[in-house]
C-alpha cells in the first residue's frame, strides 16, 4: 500500500509541476505534503480510498491549473501594455560581421535577380540556350545558399545572425512549392496528389509556425528578424513574377538590386539600433514590399474580369512581416507566466 502512496505522490508532484512557476514555487511543496496527508488518512480504507483521493484531485486539477494561469496572466497584463516593451533585456547584434551576415539575404537575392535580368533580358524563346541557362542558374543561386544558411542557423540553435536566414529558408521552401504547384496546375495536375498536397501544405504551415513559436519564445525582436527573413523572400519572389512569360519585364527585375540593398540596410538598422529603429525597419519593409508588388502587378495588365491577386498578396506579405513581432509581444506575458520571469 505504501508503494501505491509513493506512486500517487510522485504523480501528484508531476501534476503540481504544471502550475505556473510563481504559484508552484510558493505552494507546490505544501500541496504535495497535504496530498500525502490525505492519502495517509485513507490508508485504512484500502486502495479504493487512495483512488478516491486521487480522483478528487484529478477532477479539479484542470480547472485549478487553468484558473492559476488566468490569474498569473492577468497579473502580468495588469502591469500595463507598455511594460511589455519596457521590460526585458534589449536585444541587438553588437558585432558588425554578424550584423552584416544577418543583412546578407536580401542583397544576395537582389543582386542575383538583377544579374539574371541583365543576362537574359529578352523573351526566353528569343535568347540562346546558354544565356537562358546562365540566367536561370544565377537566379537560382540564392535559393540553395539561403537554404544552407538557414539549415546551419537552425542546427546552431539560431544564433543572432541566423533568424533572418532561417526565416528566408522556410519562406523559400514555401515559394518554391508554390511555383512548382502553379506550373503543375497549368496542366491541371496536382503537385504530388491531392492528399499529399494537403499534407505538404499542412507541413509547411507547421514549419512556419514552429519557427515563429521558437523565435517568439526568445523575444519579439528576434521573432521580428525572422519575419524580415520571411518578407525578404516573399517580396523578392514578386520580381520573378515580372520576368515570367508572357510579361518578360526584365527592366523591372533590375529594381531587385536597389530594393535588396534597401532591405539589407533596413535589416542592418533592425539588428543594430533600438526599438524605434526596429519599428521603422518593419514599416520600411512593409511599404517597400507593397510598392514593389503594386508596380509589378500593374505591369501584368490583367484583364478586369480576372480576380486581382493584389489584395491577397499584400495581406500575405503584411502577415509574414508582422507574424513574428506580434507573436513575440502577445506571447510575452505567457512566457513570463511559465518561466516566472
Amino acid at each position, binding site marked *: 500500500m505504501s508503494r501505491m502512496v509513493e506512486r500517487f505522490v510522485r504523480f501528484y508532484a508531476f501534476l503540481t509541476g504544471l502550475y505556473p512557476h510563481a504559484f508552484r514555487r510558493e505552494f507546490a511543496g*505544501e*500541496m504535495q505534503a497535504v496530498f500525502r496527508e490525505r492519502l495517509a488518512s485513507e490508508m485504512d480504507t484500502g486502495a479504493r480510498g487512495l483512488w478516491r483521493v486521487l480522483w478528487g484531485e484529478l477532477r479539479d486539477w484542470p480547472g485549478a491549473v487553468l484558473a492559476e494561469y488566468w490569474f498569473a496572466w492577468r497579473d502580468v497584463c495588469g502591469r500595463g501594455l507598455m511594460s511589455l516593451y519596457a521590460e526585458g533585456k534589449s536585444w541587438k547584434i553588437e558585432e558588425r560581421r554578424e550584423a552584416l551576415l544577418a543583412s546578407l539575404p536580401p542583397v544576395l537575392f537582389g543582386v542575383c535577380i538583377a544579374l539574371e535580368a541583365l543576362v537574359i533580358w529578352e523573351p526566353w524563346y528569343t535568347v540562346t540556350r546558354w544565356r537562358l541557362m546562365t540566367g536561370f542558374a544565377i537566379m537560382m543561386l540564392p535559393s540553395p545558399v539561403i537554404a544552407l544558411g538557414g539549415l546551419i542557423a537552425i542546427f546552431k540553435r539560431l544564433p543572432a545572425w541566423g533568424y533572418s536566414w532561417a526565416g528566408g529558408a522556410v519562406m523559400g521552401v514555401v515559394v518554391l512549392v508554390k511555383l512548382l504547384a502553379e506550373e503543375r496546375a497549368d496542366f491541371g495536375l496536382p503537385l504530388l496528389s491531392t492528399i499529399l498536397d494537403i499534407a505538404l501544405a499542412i507541413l509547411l504551415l507547421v514549419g512556419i509556425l514552429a519557427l515563429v513559436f521558437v523565435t517568439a519564445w526568445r523575444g519579439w525582436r528576434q521573432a521580428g528578424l525572422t519575419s524580415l527573413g520571411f518578407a525578404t523572400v516573399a517580396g523578392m519572389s514578386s520580381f520573378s513574377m515580372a520576368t515570367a512569360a508572357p510579361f518578360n519585364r526584365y527592366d523591372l527585375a533590375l529594381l531587385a538590386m536597389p530594393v535588396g540593398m534597401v532591405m539589407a540596410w533596413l535589416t542592418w538598422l533592425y539588428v543594430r539600433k533600438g526599438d524605434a529603429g526596429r519599428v521603422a525597419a518593419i514599416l520600411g519593409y512593409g511599404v517597400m514590399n507593397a510598392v514593389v508588388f503594386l508596380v509589378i502587378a500593374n505591369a501584368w495588365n490583367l484583364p478586369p474580369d480576372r480576380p486581382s491577386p493584389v489584395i491577397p498578396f499584400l495581406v500575405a506579405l503584411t502577415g509574414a512581416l508582422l507574424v513574428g513581432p506580434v507573436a513575440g509581444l502577445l506571447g510575452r506575458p505567457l512566457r513570463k507566466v511559465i518561466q516566472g520571469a
Partner: protein
Amino acid sequence: MNENLPLSEAVFFILLSLLPGPKHGYAIMKDVETLSEARVCLSTGTLYGALKRLLEDGWIERMDDDGEQTARQRKAYALTRLGKSVLEAEATRMKNLVALMQQRAPEGNAI
C-alpha cells in the same frame, strides 16, 4: 467591504475554519468538510488557489507552524483583522436576509 460580498461558499468556509485560530492546509480542508457536512470537499489545488487569493487580498496571513516540524516547513494560515471583518460583514448580510424573510413570511410560517 461590501463590494467583496457575497463570499463564495468555499471562501466562507475557509475563513470560518480559521476563525478559532491558525490552521495548516490539511486541517483547513478537513474542517471545511466537517463544517459543510461534507457538502464542500475542497481538492488540494482548489484550496491552495483560494488561499493564494486570500493572502493577496490580505484576508489571511501565513505563519510558520512551530508546533510541528516536519521535513517540509509547515505553514499555518491565520485570519487577519481584515479577514475577520469580511467574515463578520458576510454574517451580517446573511442575518439581514434571514430577518427580511422572517418579516415577509406569512403569520404562523415564521422561519
